[in-house]
């Protein structure tokens, strides 16, 4: 499937993935991520159910301590 991940086009070798599977696939290892699919917030407990499909726009932001 072709998706847009953090404003960059990417081809993922799967028809669809849950958001958690995508995070693993991309090796995002940071502990605190905030995620959106097509502009809609996906909270942490919902990442196992939320499905990413062809054409979706996914945003993953890593939150960093310090302030």
């Amino acid at each position, binding site marked *: 499937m072709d998706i847009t991940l953090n404003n960059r086009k990417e081809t993922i070798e799967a028809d669809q993935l849950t958001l958690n599977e995508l995070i693993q696939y991309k090796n995002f290892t940071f*502990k*605190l991520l*905030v995620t*959106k699919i097509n*502009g809609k*917030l996906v*909270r942490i407990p919902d990442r196992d159910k939320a499905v990413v499909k062809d054409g979706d726009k996914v*945003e993953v*932001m*890593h*939150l*960093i*301590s*310090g*302030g």
Partner: protein
Amino acid sequence: MQTKTIRVKLKGKKVGIAGCGGLGSNAAVSLARVGVKSFVLVDFDVVDESNLNRQYFFRHQIGLLKTDALKSNMLLIDPTLQIEVFAEKLSEETMLTHFASCDLIIEAFDQAEAKQQLLESFLSVNTGQYLIMGNGMAGFGGFEKLRQEQWDDRVYICGDFESEISAEMPPLGPRVAIVANMQANLALELLLKND
């Protein structure tokens, strides 16, 4: 826009400061200087000597609650400010309610967990407010890596999005104050645009 017009427009605005450390104290002071009159300050911590390398406090304030110390310092700049303080750790319930009357919230927490909680709470309700977060500002140099991004209709992020605080990468006055003032500068832009 002339200084006088800016002051008139800002007079009716209220800004929430979520965390009065390096980002929060510096952003609040900048906004007080230019004419924001009402603030809500939230922080549970007290001023420590190690904070003086970047936070808007002074040596004689060590041991005071950051909310009280920051309030005093802001009132020295403008004695007519209206400042509400909450010296407590925000919970999921109070995360947004303490800021309910604010036009804009500056997220200035230290811990990534708290940043995430505030962002997720904020996004789950439509309050009509703006949220400006700080994300990644440890160390020195790397000015070209700093940026601001709009993350949602009313959510903006300022920082380098990568430099995590560690023993080798401490938070230091210049870079923390740059990001704090990126937040304050963007706050001004949004508050003045929206009038």
